[in-house]
């Protein structure tokens, strides 16, 4: 199980990367105005 000594630190890095992605999403307002998206289908354009 020595491979764990590579995989676990790799997973830590992955989590940090996901956190960075979440930061980007929140800052760009991806989580706001969710109700409006549902009615986008009704628009003509």
């Amino acid at each position, binding site marked *: 199980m020595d491979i*764990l000594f590579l995989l*676990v*630190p790799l997973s830590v890095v992955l*989590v940090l990367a*996901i956190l960075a992605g*979440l*930061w980007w999403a*929140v800052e760009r307002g991806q989580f706001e105005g969710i109700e409006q998206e549902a009615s986008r289908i*009704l*628009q003509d354009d």
Partner: protein
Amino acid sequence: MAHSSPSPPPASSASSASVNPLDGVSAAQTADFAVLDDPQEWLAFGKPLDASVDASDPFPDSTSPSTTWQSQVTVQGMHCAACALTVERAMTALPGVVQAQVNAATGRAQVVWRSGQIKPSDWMGAVQAAGYGILPANDASLVDQRKTEERRALWRWLVAALCMMQVMMYAYPTYSALPGDMSTDSLHLMHWAGWVLTLPLLFFSCWPFFESAWRDLTHRSISMDLPVALGLLVTFGVSTAATFDPNGVFGDEVYFDSMSMFVFFLLSARWLEQRLKNRTAGALDVLMNRLPESVERRGQNGEPNQRVALRELRVGDEVRVLPGEAFPADGEVLSGDTWADEALLTGESAPVHYAPGSSTTSGAHNLQSAVWIRVLRLGKDTRLAAIVDLMSQAALEKPRLAQLADRVATPFLWLVLLAALLAAVFGWRVSPNHGLMVAVSVLIVTCPCALSLATPVAMLAAAGRLARGGVLVQHLQALETLAGVDRVVFDKTGTLTQDALHIDQIWVRPGVTREQALSAGAALAAHSLHPLSRALVKYSEASTPVSSGCSGSKKERHGVSAPMEIKDVSETAGQGLSAAGGWRLGSAAWCHVDLSPGSLAGGPVAPGRHRVYLSDAQGWLATFEGAELLRPDAQATVQALKALGLSVALLSGDRPEAAKQVAAELGIAPDLAFGGCTPEDKLTQLQAWQKAGHRTLMVGDGFNDGPVLAGAQVSMAFGEAVPIARARSDMVLLSTQLLQVPRTVHLARRTLRVVKQNLIWAALYNALCVPLAILGYLPAWLAGLGMATSSLVVVLNAARLSWPGRAEHPLKS
């Protein structure tokens, strides 16, 4: 910054239709949009998009290109996304509007337009013509600020969620491994990984706790964030020591999983609480969206007098302040004689006499008659800034129950810290690790937050729900008092009956035409805010020969044209108006009119009919008669109040027969209906009832019932009340629906029940869990779960109050 805070529209006689921002906009508002064409107003609800333009000087040169502005507005009356499209198309169809984005869910719109090609009143008028209400969004900056805060809170919560999940993944093997299965190195690897992922949690998600705890320490006070921050620090410290020095004094057990779970639960509870608060604050801030306040200014060089926005006033202008309005500036009285209330400024409730030559104070309320003043000093703190301040103060004011809870919470927290210390000392004997973790459990499991949260959260939820229904709560304490009320007292004219009197018969003295009598009467009535005067002005506007068929052209309403200059008008409460030259307008006694059968003045008054008489130096001139209509929901309101167990009373300044008739129609007991009351009579009767042990709610419009509104335990200013009544009463009914009265009482009772439930829960929870933690039965993660659940329970219980639906009052199906 030179813009004054926005305000509710004045109860002016020129535009007497009631403005109801929650139900759609009346026709009179088309004229008022013109106030927004002033470029100086644009900054209040928008910003220029061209960076090169100097925003403080937006007057475009006729040769220079126009400026592009981006403005925020609120739109009322949209039911779905299709409505949003309609509004968008209505605006973009106009030349000069570059872009319009309307959000049906939030009711807000953003409009980009060019100032040289189109004016705000044009595109606002287009929306109104499409059938929707529209108002400038003066709270846009507050909305932005809240959005930033919400984003930050969401980010913290997401970090906590992700880290919690991953740390649990690393901790799981340590739980499920059989002894000997896992090598020490692997164990240390897992601990290290957990440590690394707890770091973002500590720095991002836990930051608010540390900040608040630091503030407590520097101020030598205590709040519930201090035990939480202590618990977090101790846990992290012990676990870090165990990670890097497993053979040290703190053992080799780590608690990263407990800590991250605890932070996640706590942040979830707080996020829900923040959303509730924001929704409430949002509902209250929406009331800031009003057209700017205006005042009548004398026209220069023969131009007619005009209503202008307050900020257009200059030193030296002459303005007329009607009774019930507030003085817009510090000035000097030119003509007229009146009494003014400066209580909001000086605290003295005795009125001050203003005669020609005396100085007026900005913000004082004109109580008696209209006066002309010359503006000497313009202040940035107008009347409305004071009211808005009062509103925001009221939101911070803590009701009695909340103060009680706070007083208990502080010593309780000290006890908790002490208990944690003792538990640590006793547990140290087993092992330092164990002792510290028991202390952490004690610190974390206690939830005095439930105690402190119980009342404010419920009151805020109720206030927000009420604000959405058109009831503005100015004193949160009133909700508590309202729950214990057992008698509701109504004013008649303007409250139980509709504001608009339908004038349908006019008698005139031989030799005078109807039009002359009407214009004379309206000129006099323009100086008063009494419902009968307003009805007369409205009727005269409606029947000017130029605009037959429609209710007055735009031009008529922009200016208050005064074909007859009436001088020295003074109003006597309950009687009428008088002016120089022997003019009198008012009741029969006031105008010295003979009402015997067969007289030219119309004979005795039939029940249910209301009259206003006009007389001049030669005697009776005209009689205007009309019928007063009851509000459509008045009867349902009285029934609903009775079903709630309240007794209903009526105090009216009108004739006793009229009062008795209305009482009979609505089902009010005859011994509780009084007519012919002066304001003092009303107060005396109210005090008699209060002495008999009744707790009263008074609903009125402030006209002739100012003292009794102040004297009742709870007061509600109704609809277009006199501004001073709106400022002084506990609640303001902005939507003129009487049914809101029983609904509010019902909600107040529910609120009090919820508060009691919350307090009982908080007490029971702490009484049970703290001993358990001291004895060592609660592991840290369970303690965290307990605390978060406890505050969640309180918040959700309170949130029930703001959910729509479920029978709101006994008569609603």
